[in-house]
């Protein structure tokens, strides 16, 4: 069984936001990938960060996790300035980046052991947690298999196991459900729900809006580098409904889905008339 502390660290209630940014900006030459973004994620939230391709989601999450330096602006994690107290912040967070950050020529157990040690866990705790996580993620059956030979779903599960081995208070996940089958997705969701139930904060980007709608309590939408919406699902729904009559966009339930809110917010409804007639 996974211990509570393993999943959430010591989750004392706190008033400060789990994640907050002030005027976060990132430029690549002329391109402004992220422009003056002000995010605020409360502790314990399951937060979905959405946007069309190239909107700036990955750039933002990379800045929030230390993979990319902001051009300007400020990031605070649990009230700590990321730029000034980097190491302290990194001990409190877990990250599953886009590339998964795996070491291909280790076995799953060796990889988790390595990660545990790099986060400062003692040898016995590392071994115990690694074994538990491998069992929970159903990765214990082939202990001698190298990570490079894992399927994509197995790699995602291992990356998530590594991200939680030290019991982070905040978990950043970049597209955790992309390319994952229903069984693996179920395992991932189960772990994430357990974590939020015990007070951890989850910050994820995803294109799978059905999953985000089911899991996330709060959502932010970024479009062309600008934060265009932020709040609880109900707040976003109310905002869209105040602009458009519900019947005009809502499906059979009479309630706007996240997909409809998203499309309305980023103006991405595609005309059925757009054609690629040569496709047949």
């Amino acid at each position: 069984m996974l211990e509570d502390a393993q999943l959430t660290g010591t989750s004392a209630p706190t008033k400060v936001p789990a994640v907050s940014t002030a005027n976060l900006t990132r430029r690549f030459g002329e391109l402004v990938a992220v422009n003056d973004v002000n995010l605020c994620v409360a502790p314990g939230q399951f937060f979905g960060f959405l946007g069309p391709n190239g909107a700036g989601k990955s750039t933002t999450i990379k800045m929030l996790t230390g993979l990319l330096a902001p051009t300007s602006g400020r990031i605070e994690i649990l009230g700590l300035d990321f730029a000034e107290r980097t190491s302290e912040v990194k001990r409190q967070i877990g990250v599953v980046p886009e590339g998964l950050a795996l070491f291909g020529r280790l076995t799953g157990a060796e990889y988790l052991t390595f990660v545990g040690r790099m986060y400062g866990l003692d040898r016995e705790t590392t071994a115990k947690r690694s074994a538990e996580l491998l069992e929970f993620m159903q990765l214990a059956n082939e202990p001698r298999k190298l990570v490079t030979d894992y399927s994509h779903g197995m790699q995602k599960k291992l990356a998530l196991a590594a991200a939680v081995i030290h019991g982070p208070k905040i978990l950043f996940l970049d597209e955790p459900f992309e390319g994952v089958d229903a069984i693996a997705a179920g395992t991932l969701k189960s772990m994430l729900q357990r974590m939020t139930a015990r007070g951890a904060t989850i910050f994820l980007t995803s294109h799978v809006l059905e999953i985000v709608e089911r899991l996330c309590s709060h959502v932010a939408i970024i479009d062309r580098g600008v934060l265009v919406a932020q709040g609880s699902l109900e707040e976003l729904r109310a905002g869209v409904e105040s602009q458009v009559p519900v019947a005009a966009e809502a499906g059979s339930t009479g309630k706007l889905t996240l997909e409809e809110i998203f499309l309305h917010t980023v103006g991405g409804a595609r005309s059925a008339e757009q054609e690629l007639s040569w496709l047949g």
Partner: protein
Amino acid sequence: MAIASVRWQIFLHSLRSKRGAVELFSRVVIGAVITGGGLGGAILLGVGAWYFVSQGKPEALALLLWPVFLFWQMFPLMATALSESIDSTNLLRFPLSYRTYVMVRLVYGALDPATVLGTFWLVGILLGIGWARPGLIPWAFIVLLVFAAVNMMLTQMIFAWVERWLGQRRTREIFAVLFFLAMISLQLIGPMLSRYGDRSNAAFHWAGHFANPIQAVLPPGIAAGALASKAAAHIALAFGLLGALVLYAVVILRILSVRLRAQFRGENLSEVVDRGKDEVSRPGVRLAWKIPGLSQEAAAVVEKEFRYLSRSGPVLLTFVTPIVMLFVFGLGGRSGGAGFLQNWPELGLPVGAAYALLLLTNLIYNNFGPDAGGIQFFLVSPASFRGVMLGKNVAHMGVLAAELLALWIGVCLLFRPPTASALLITLSGLLFAAPVNLAAGNLLSLYSPKKTEFGTFGRQRASQTTVLASFAIQGVVFGVAAIVLLIARSYQRQWLAVVGFCVLAALAFVVYFFVLGSVDRLARRRREVLTTELCK
């Protein structure tokens, strides 16, 4: 055409960044060095060919073709930083026919430095022959062209098969056993020759009689035979020998195509073990290593590095090369007398150690290359890059120490135990050279990283900037070492060299720790380059 066009576009895009421009500059400089070596060798071999043909001894052309052949086959194995085989998985996504796939692989192989140099040298030989006997040019052109094709395909064949054997644990173990059996057999030659020491000339005449027919049926001997037969107007024999050379090319291509076909079908050389067996022997999670004197993170990195190295056949092969070279230099060059290291056995250890350090630079200068996407973990984790680098450096020095021990044993068995002064000079020299290389390697690993594939032969190529910088650093290190040794020799006080190296080592360690202290800051500054290059 499409692949050539894509590569050209990639090249143009790479010039957009400063790093790309530096890489191009390095490539041009290295290209110039290779061209210089090619031209110099071509002139020497050309003069040699002219001499042999004009003296009426065209069969002696074998003496020129054999070194070309051996270089062509050995260089890619010994200088993996300069050699690169194409990653077939990138090609297989496209609707290529098998024939096109083979062509692409062969053409790509022709861009190898060994092929470029070998081609230069064969052109030199061709011109030398033509200078002596202009009428021989068309025939020599055909023979040398086929000889070049044999060389090029043989290199690729060796690469492809070694990659296959080293790709999996089981085949790797078989390969290792065969390799060590070969080493032991070589070891028997030394005592055998010593036993017949008084009759060494006779023994070598006998060996010459025995070896000559063998070399005559191998590609360089056949090519020389074909040229000599045509020069002697033995047309039928000349065509027969050319046919034999073509037959070699066809057979080599057939053997190569076994591997290429497997790759074309999407073969995956993984370490996957039989699932049933794996489940039966399901071990628990082992405790991590604990290394006295090292921080937890550095110890974790050392453990990880050793696991990586032990699973990389190509890297393991690189590590045994210095020991092989000891055998080669110990046995070679005996023309009635002793070989190079037989004459100067005290040089065995220092030469082997220097060579081991040189080979290790492949890893030291691109510390994060094998980690590839794993670099993201180092960036998001609280671990310090100082600890990570220290762990990697300790692991690499552990390998060097193990190699040094193996070399010492080899020198003791093959020649005689190194004298105390030779041992001290070697160790103090390494104390100077190692931290210099580690410091430079740590910087280059951050400034010029390149993703490498540990499991696949020929894909450990470093960036050209790193290769160029490596040449420059080795030039300085070996230059300084030579000066120290010359001073000690001129005063006939060997201990002076030890003292000199120790003083230099102290300075080198100051530089090393200074660099180590700044890697965290540098890594933060270089994080975008690191992730861009290593997560490709």
